[in-house]
């Protein structure tokens, strides 16, 4: 008789149980589920505790963003872009403004470019901090890391509020510049925030990155291979955690990103731990960019004076603009037919496309790990469903 190693025996057993339909359990995680970031549903087929099949169900927050945008003027879509990825409204604004500027051939003054970089990097800081906080919450570290993250987030939101008038929904960028100039003392305050932020990062890293429970829960969990990441069109921190050096700030050098000296952190294993660490490291790089931008910002106009705000009608044509939003490649595709409304308005949301590999990462994982893997994808439902 052949001896079967215990490991093989277990696999053989689970394969046998997987065959009989009765042993499998269909459960629906969501749309009301404490771990899903908003109203997202996963139809999961379980064999005991292991995930055999996972089907994401979208559409619970489909708010007709694209259809509404095709019936209003170009500028009127700007406030709607705030509500796409509602954690980072300023990067959404920038992606849309960039696309329209490409479509209509508008030049942006230098000071406005600097303001855009500063606000976008601040957005990245608060997004990554909250993402890690939410991830820890899902891992069972209830409260503390999220509280720390939101403490810093509030400080950055104060800056946004004094600049744009709103904590979350900024509606700040315009085609050819920015809506208002920086208020008095804003740069000084931002410098102070940027100077103090590394202390929070040190605290966060000391608290989390070598924590034994966190290591056990994250290392080797939810591995996304380099090949699949590229084939799936994954972008942002998720792609870089899998070891692909691709950052649109470096590739496209949109805006004035070619002037700044910063590195792109790359992961090695593509597991949950790498995706967590990438975000911590990216925050440090963002701080580098912020320090340089705050040092180099010049005086000057913030709006291109030639751009018409009323009766804005770009020439017929099409344009695709993209930026590196905190979640990945955020792109807008616009087709103009010369009328005040876009003929076609399409968003390329990073969250939705990053979600497409969720099943591949979760197969074989336990339910508790599924929640953690899902947390590192960093989705915002406003952007997934639009």
């Amino acid at each position, binding site marked *: 008789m052949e001896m079967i190693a215990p490991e093989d025996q277990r696999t053989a057993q689970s394969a046998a149980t997987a065959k009989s339909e009765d042993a499998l359990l269909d459960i629906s995680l969501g749309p009301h589920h404490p771990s899903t970031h908003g109203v997202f549903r996963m139809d999961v087929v379980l064999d005991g505790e292991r995930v055999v099949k996972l089907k994401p169900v979208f559409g619970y927050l489909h708010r007709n963003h694209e259809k509404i945008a095709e019936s209003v003027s170009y500028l009127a879509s700007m406030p709607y872009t705030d509500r796409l990825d509602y954690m980072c409204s300023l990067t959404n604004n920038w992606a849309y403004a960039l696309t329209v500027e490409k479509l209509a051939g508008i030049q942006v003054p230098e000071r406005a470019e600097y303001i855009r970089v500063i606000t976008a990097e601040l957005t990245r800081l608060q997004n990554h901090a909250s993402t890690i906080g939410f991830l820890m919450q899902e891992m069972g570290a209830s409260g503390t890391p999220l509280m720390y993250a*939101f403490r810093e987030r509030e400080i950055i939101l104060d800056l946004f509020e004094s600049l744009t008038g709103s904590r979350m929904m900024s509606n700040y960028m315009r085609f050819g510049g920015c809506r208002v100039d920086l208020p008095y003392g804003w740069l000084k305050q931002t410098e102070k925030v940027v100077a103090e932020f590394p202390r929070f990062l040190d605290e966060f890293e000391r608290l989390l990155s070598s924590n034994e429970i966190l290591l056990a829960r994250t290392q080797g969990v939810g591995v996304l291979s380099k090949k699949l990441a590229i084939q799936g069109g994954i972008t942002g921190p998720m792609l870089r955690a899998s070891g692909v050096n691709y950052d649109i700030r470096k590739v496209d050098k949109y805006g004035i990103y070619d002037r700044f000296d910063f590195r792109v952190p790359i992961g090695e294993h593509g597991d949950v731990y790498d995706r967590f660490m990438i975000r911590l490291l990216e925050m440090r790089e963002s701080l580098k960019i912020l320090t340089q931008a705050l040092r180099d910002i010049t005086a000057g106009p913030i709006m291109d004076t030639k751009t018409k705000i009323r009766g804005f009608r770009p020439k017929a044509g099409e344009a695709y603009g993209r930026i590196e939003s905190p979640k990945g490649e955020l792109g807008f595709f616009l087709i103009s037919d010369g009328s005040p409304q876009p003929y076609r308005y399409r968003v390329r949301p990073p969250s939705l496309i990053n979600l497409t590999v969720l099943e591949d990462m979760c197969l074989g994982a336990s339910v508790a790990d599924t929640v953690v893997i899902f947390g590192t994808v960093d989705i915002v439902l406003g952007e997934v469903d639009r």
Partner: protein
Amino acid sequence: MDPELKNELSRQGIFTTTLEELYNWGRKSSVWPLTFGLACCAIEMIATTMARYDLARFGAEIFRPSPRQADLMIVAGTVTKKMAPQVVRLYNQMPEPKYVIAMGACAISGGPFKQGYNVLKGIDRYIPVDVHIPGCPPRPEALMDAFITLQKKIATQHLTGVDRPRHLNPDAPSEFIVPEFGAHDLEPPKNLKLWHITSNSSPKIPSTADNNEPGKD
């Protein structure tokens, strides 16, 4: 009880209260909200519970993931037609006494997405709302204000009489119709027992009694 006598007694170190006051005080001081975020407003709701705004000061720090353990549903965000049945079902699963705060423009009326084909034009079409807070999204202070308003409402509820709250009235319903997808839209498009405004007549302003007993017409 005569207020003067009550004052006199409290000066003597004797604390008197009524069962109603004690009951309402206990309820209003430990309202447990449901962990239930729909869209953008949910982030502000989370921010309200965090260190700076600290909703725990008002006895509401415990967000319960299960509707069976929650007293308060904060409808934070856009309710789409795909999500509306689930929202009503969750509300039905909550035990009485239960309250609803409609947070933000979308939950009140559809907000900026009102013209969309998939957006419900206000959650008060299906479930009774106690407090509406406007804003897109409302600031954490606004949510706290809504919360205090709700506490005031709970504190003044009578345990007996015609204006007693719904959970003490056996005739008042505690569950509401869960809409379903019909041929074109949600069926029914609104719960007529809750929705007082009809298009062909002048809008009737609901009285306070209606608010307390939303199912009773």
